[in-house]
């Protein structure tokens, strides 16, 4: 096994990106993700890569757009308010079908909000954020190790499906240190015949574009894109199950909330409550099948979120509202304690959701 090193979550993302072959980073400072940019600023010049601090989040995502169109593995990172500014570029990147990796180390909102951890950009990440019909692959790490492994996975998926992969982390996972080991990154490479490389006067010019003034052409393009999305939904959903074998109740949580929830599930088990946990690792595609399957055997769900309850809607959709879904939430930068989650589990056990 590779050597274990202690790293901050944000640094793990940066190091993993470099190992995944990313040599171009464009960003703009914002708390709590600055370690990513700092790491890139230090490392990129030494390995022949490019770190560039842009004049704004808007500019940085458009630099990403250009670099992605040029056929490179490229990334940017930001936190909630900055992601809102990048939404324009995310839409253009989707509309042009070029691959990119975008990291959101979430903080509380709306508006300038706060700088403490949050999961309140779930809707923005999974339902759009920018304008138009499009999807992003959304990966939700729950540990420093996953910050690294999902970054590598994200680059691979982005290239494979010509989409943006978003790492939807939060301030806690970004700031905390845990031991991780970098196994040799499995870098998948894909041909990019559409890339802007210069024609070398040997082929017809490539055009990277999201403008289709003829509605039938735009519609066809969107249909085609959604066929691709369908394949992503069929093949790429990821989740973890914990103590679900005999569970009569199911807690659903991702990211840092799942860490707290795990403690609470263990405590509830100690009290004799048969409860388990499903942790979505991909938020889009949402692990619908896992939830639907669980709905057949549990009497209800508890969604633990650092928001006013956003993922809860996807749980209800996935389970077709067949079972009650309770919400255990804190927001604005607050994190529920294991006791708070335990209390919600006890209530659910009594049929109170």
């Amino acid at each position, binding site marked *: 096994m590779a050597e*274990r*090193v*202690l790293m901050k979550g944000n640094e793990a993302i940066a190091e993993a990106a470099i190992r995944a072959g990313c040599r171009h980073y464009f960003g703009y400072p914002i*708390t*709590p993700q600055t370690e990513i940019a700092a790491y890139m600023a230090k490392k990129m010049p030494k390995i022949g890569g490019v770190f560039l601090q842009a004049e704004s989040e808007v500019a940085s995502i458009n630099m990403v757009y250009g670099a992605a169109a040029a056929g490179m593995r490229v990334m940017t990172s930001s936190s909630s308010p900055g992601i809102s500014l990048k939404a324009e570029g995310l839409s253009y990147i989707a509309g042009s079908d070029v691959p990119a990796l975008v990291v959101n180390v979430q903080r509380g909102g709306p508006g300038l909000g706060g*700088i*403490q951890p949050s999961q309140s950009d779930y809707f923005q990440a999974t339902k759009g954020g920018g304008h138009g019909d499009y999807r992003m692959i959304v990966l939700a790490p729950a540990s420093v190790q996953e910050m690294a492994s999902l970054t590598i996975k994200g680059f691979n998926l982005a290239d494979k499906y010509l989409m943006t992969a978003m790492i939807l982390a939060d*301030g*806690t996972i970004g*700031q*905390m*240190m*845990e*031991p991780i080991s970098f196994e040799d990154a499995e870098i998948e490479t894909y041909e990019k015949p559409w890339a802007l490389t210069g024609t070398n006067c040997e082929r017809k010019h490539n055009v990277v574009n999201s403008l289709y003034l003829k509605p039938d052409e735009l519609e066809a393009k969107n249909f085609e894109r959604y066929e691709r999305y369908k394949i992503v939904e069929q093949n790429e959903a990821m989740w973890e199950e914990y103590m679900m074998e005999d569970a009569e109740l199911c807690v659903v949580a991702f990211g*840092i909330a799942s*860490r*707290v929830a*795990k*403690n609470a599930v*263990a405590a509830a088990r100690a009290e004799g409550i048969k409860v388990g946990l499903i942790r979505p690792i991909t938020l889009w595609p949402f692990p619908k099948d896992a939830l639907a399957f669980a709905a057949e055997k549990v009497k209800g769900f508890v969604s633990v979120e650092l928001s006013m309850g956003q993922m809860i809607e996807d749980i209800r959709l996935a389970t077709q509202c067949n079972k009650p879904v309770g919400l255990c939430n804190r927001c604005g930068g607050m*994190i529920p*304690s*294991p*006791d708070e989650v335990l209390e919600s589990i006890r209530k659910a056990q009594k049929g109170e959701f």
Partner: protein
Amino acid sequence: MKTTQILIAGFGGQGILFAGKFLAYKGLVEDLQVSWLPSYGPEMRGGTANCNVILSDTPVGSPIITQPDVLIAMNLPSLQKYVDTVVPGGQIYVDSALIDAKVERTDVEVFYIPATQMAKDNNIASLANMIIVGHLLENNPHLSFAGTDEVVEKLVPAKKAALLELNKKALALGKNYKN
């Protein structure tokens, strides 16, 4: 070993995060499961700082500590804020050079050590944090002092070699202090 949850709190500038980092690295070297979580943001600049360190031989669940087994308090506000969160049977380490107050709880073990004064007296003024860490490692049944040299060497960058010996000295001062 069981899971040990250590909460370190004080002012920004007291080396709170470094003390936590040291304990985390010690766990790493000992092949334990480890998490280290700092407070972050503007409050770090001159305000209060705290750091959550969990050492365990099983995977760490939540990295957020709500009921510490060990509290290191390096100023009065931190002691007041966290004293009641320590689990019964837990330990509290108090920098008694900076904190006059006594802990009234009788269900916890309290160690008073004038770390900041000791650091001053020994010309290692910035290393009160490591004096307390040394005292903790010596006195906590789940932790051990052995192997600290290796951790110091791992953690202090080569550029700052002068700090190596000073850190070791601070740890030893804490280890040898008798309450």
